[in-house]
């Protein structure tokens, strides 16, 4: 499997305490553990089971994911921040890997 590639989209300009949309996605097959490959062999479960976003170290949102979440899990939410800071995104894989991304937020 190709290395999962996380992506996050933020608006160009962010104002203090004004909600903005955060769009997140990571490339990942999200193997449900229910499917068989072309040889009829069960593909073991391997999913992103947890997604955590923090802002300056404070947890903003956590999402627990089950195999019913689509491949390349997409999560979108709103948030508002009082001041500039760093948004940290972490995706936790069944295999123990953690994929991270951080984004600097400059409040206008």
């Amino acid at each position, binding site marked *: 499997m190709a290395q999962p590639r996380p992506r996050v989209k933020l608006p160009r300009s962010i104002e203090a305490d004004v*909600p903005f949309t955060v769009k997140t996605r990571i490339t990942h097959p999200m193997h*449900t553990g*229910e*499917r068989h490959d072309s040889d009829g062999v069960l593909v073991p479960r391997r999913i992103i089971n947890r997604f955590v*976003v923090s*802002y300056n170290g*404070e*947890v*903003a*949102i*956590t*999402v*627990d*994911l*089950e*195999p*019913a*979440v*689509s*491949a390349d*899990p*997409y*999560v*979108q*939410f*709103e*948030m*508002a*921040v009082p001041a500039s800071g760093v948004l940290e995104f972490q995706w936790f894989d069944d295999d123990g890997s953690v994929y991270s991304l951080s984004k600097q937020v400059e409040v206008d």
Partner: protein
Amino acid sequence: MAPTRRDVLLLSASAVAAALVPAGAAQASNGVWQAIDEFTGSALRLEGGVLLDAPEIFDNGGAVPIRVVAEGARRIALFNDGNPNPGVAVFNFGRLVPPEATIRIRLAQSQTVYAVAEMADGTYREASQKIAVTVGGCG
């Protein structure tokens, strides 16, 4: 003693009620009710207060967009009654994120999706939506 007319009516009324309630439940063989009870601690769930924004019909069961909003919620969980497993996702909202989220999910067949919100006062709210998919997403 022979049953009175009233007994018969009461019996048939409860039979109808019994038939109505499990009609949805009978279809759900994936344990969705137990899963929801685990999330709520078997607390009563009230209708209203949760917006579950999902298509009534969608061509690709592999990526069905679902949006949930529940003003005043601290957690929102999504469940399904037609996939092998009933859980979908649980959102925990911190101080900076209003209780609203969008996610794309897999539906193996046409079925009902449930959104259960845990409100800040510890009560639970629920919304559900039947979604028809033309191509299942777990094949």
